[in-house]
């Protein structure tokens, strides 16, 4: 009995020590987190004050050189506040709207610094922004101070942010900021077009039946001709209606999505084990090219292929029928098995949302003057790509090689054919 009592006492002591240590660890972690959140929240508040000042300063100067610094500050501060806000546990709707507003403000300042916003428009917008930021900062200070005060009881804050019903204050702030975004930075024509494209608004084809798309799927992908399928429809909130087909055929399982209007293939993926055989790269490319033609995409060119350990990922882009320029926004992706080249995936989302292309001048450039003598242009083709304002621009697509004694780097640079502005510059692997 004595032994049992002693053993129980020892066990209780050990458990007590364990519980105490765990609690201490929990408190330490809570304190760390509380410190981090407080720091971020305070930083966000301080930067908001700086941002207000920078917005004011940017409306004071007319001289582009004097305006450069406040514009740079707006861009930097909005980006930094975004980072602070996104790392804080705030009400989701509020965070989203505030991140959106800050992003738009930063982008606008960047466009202004590039001379792409007329002075008059800039003044109108920034005067509004300035007024809205002043109003908002009062609300923010109140709400954040209250939240920080709640940290006296950290669990209270945690409870509030996890609550299914967010507090009224934050919901109101979220609505206010949403209103600011709509009034200060309404969607531009290009953004609106971009959204329409994303929502497949251009598809005017007649609706097709479920039976027809299943038949179409089996014809497009013969390995699935005996597949068992389950077809469902998109939910009512989808921007465009589509059929979702889940299939299973022996070792293959996967899905395909087809638009209800016109029965256009959106995407397909097959999952199956990959054998140890390997087909040559050339054969894979032939199979990929044959496949896209069979699916009805005749106007495309293979521009990229990437070998990974089980599959190949291949990219095709549409070619402009007139100038044969590559249209990168109208791409098709294919996934092929390395063992036999079977098509395991097709993605045509971007291709079926065809771009409207501008009628644009091609002004010749002297590349010797444009680039330093450290680089050599290896190839030049025409291509369409999107600029920061979401407009398609015709570009010179250059592969540029920069070689030193130690290493070499390849850049893919897209330069506007009319303005000679660099739209995109990527360092290639």
């Amino acid at each position, binding site marked *: 009995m004595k032994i049992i009592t002693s053993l129980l006492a020892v066990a209780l002591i050990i458990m007590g020590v364990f519980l105490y240590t765990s609690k201490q660890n929990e408190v330490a972690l809570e304190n760390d987190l509380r410190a981090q959140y407080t720091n971020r929240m305070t930083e966000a508040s301080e930067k908001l004050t700086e941002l207000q000042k920078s917005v004011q300063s940017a409306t004071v100067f007319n001289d582009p050189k004097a305006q450069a610094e406040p514009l740079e500050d707006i861009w930097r501060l909005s980006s930094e506040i975004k980072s602070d806000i996104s790392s804080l546990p705030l009400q*989701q709707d509020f965070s989203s709207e505030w991140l959106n507003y800050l992003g738009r403000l930063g982008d606008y300042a960047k466009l202004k610094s590039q001379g792409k916003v007329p002075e008059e428009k800039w003044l109108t917008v920034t005067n509004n922004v300035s007024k809205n930021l002043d109003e908002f900062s009062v609300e923010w200070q109140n709400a954040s101070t209250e939240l920080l005060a709640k940290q006296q009881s950290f669990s209270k804050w945690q409870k509030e942010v996890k609550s299914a019903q967010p507090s009224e204050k934050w919901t109101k702030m979220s609505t206010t900021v949403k209103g600011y975004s709509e009034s200060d930075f309404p969607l531009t024509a290009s953004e609106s077009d971009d959204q329409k494209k994303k929502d497949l608004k251009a598809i005017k084809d007649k609706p097709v039946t479920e039976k027809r798309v299943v038949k179409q799927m089996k014809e497009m992908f013969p390995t699935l001709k005996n597949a068992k399928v389950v077809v469902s429809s998109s939910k009512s*909130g989808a921007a465009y209606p589509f059929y979702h087909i889940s299939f299973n055929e022996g070792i293959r*399982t996967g899905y395909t999505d087809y638009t209800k209007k016109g029965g256009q293939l959106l995407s397909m993926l097959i999952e199956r084990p990959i054998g140890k055989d390997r087909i040559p*790269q050339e054969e894979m490319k032939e199979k990929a090219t044959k496949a896209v033609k069979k699916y009805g995409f005749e106007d495309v060119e293979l521009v990229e292929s990437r070998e990974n350990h089980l599959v190949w990922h291949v990219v095709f882009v549409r070619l402009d029928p007139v100038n044969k320029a590559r249209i990168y926004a109208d791409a098709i992706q294919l996934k092929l098995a390395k063992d036999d080249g079977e098509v395991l995936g097709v993605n045509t989302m971007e291709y079926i949302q065809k771009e409207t292309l501008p009628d644009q001048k091609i002004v010749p450039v002297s590349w010797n003057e444009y680039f330093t003598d450290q680089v050599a242009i290896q190839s030049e083709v025409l291509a369409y790509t999107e600029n920061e304002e979401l407009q398609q621009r015709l570009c010179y697509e250059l592969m540029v090689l920069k070689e030193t004694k130690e290493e070499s780097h390849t850049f*893919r640079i897209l330069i506007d054919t009319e303005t000679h502005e660099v739209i995109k510059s*990527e360092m290639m*692997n």
Partner: protein
Amino acid sequence: MRKNKWLVWFITLCLLTMTLSTPKHSEAFSGQVIELGANGEDVIELQARLQYMGFYKNQIDGKFGYGTYWALRNFQEKFGLPVDGIAGQKTKAKLVNQSNYNKEFVRNQLNKGNRFTHYGGKPLEQQVKKGTSPAPKKNEQVQLPAKYSQQDLQLMANAVYGEARGEPYEGQVAVASVILNRVEDSKFPNTVSGVVFQPRAFTAVADGQIWLTPNARAKEAVLDAINGWDPTENALYYFNPDTATSAWIWTRPQIKTIGKHIFCE
């Protein structure tokens, strides 16, 4: 008997001719034709041989990128071969004749994760800089579109495994797509890590399941999403209707259901 002797001589002669005429490369390179986009052992040998002769200056990593492509073209030009940046049999044979390849050294360094070069005319042991982390295993090496990094892939694979390991493959690609859709959307942080670690964005971050080691299937799913597949048709949110506690999430316009998740705008 005499006839048989002639036959033996003839067969021996044929075998000898065949042995001599078989290019040296068959012992090293595989018979595959490789070009831009390829990945693997043949590319490692190609890079090492091109570096041996000073044509290739970048890291030997087995990925046939542009560095390898221009180096190969320069080699082809110098040796009077058709300049196409494709390593076919003739190019490979010429490379084998003109260079040395110390396979053991190269493999050894790659396995140890060392930074090294394979230039000719300099002792190999002097061309090794010891690394701090092991190089990825052969089957973990992946080629990504230019705008994504290996860290993005790893972090997304962790998130997908933590969030959706019990889901069908399509459901795993879908979770990865939501992360990428958020990166592109102005209402969210614009990096993969910013999106994944946004407070309360993913359950797997809150409950620590993000730190589980992802399996190959989760990585494959992320790779498909990074390469353009989006089974969610542009969703920004998803939730499990059986476990979701937020009333707000039910207010989002729903797009489709995959496995146990409903995907929304």
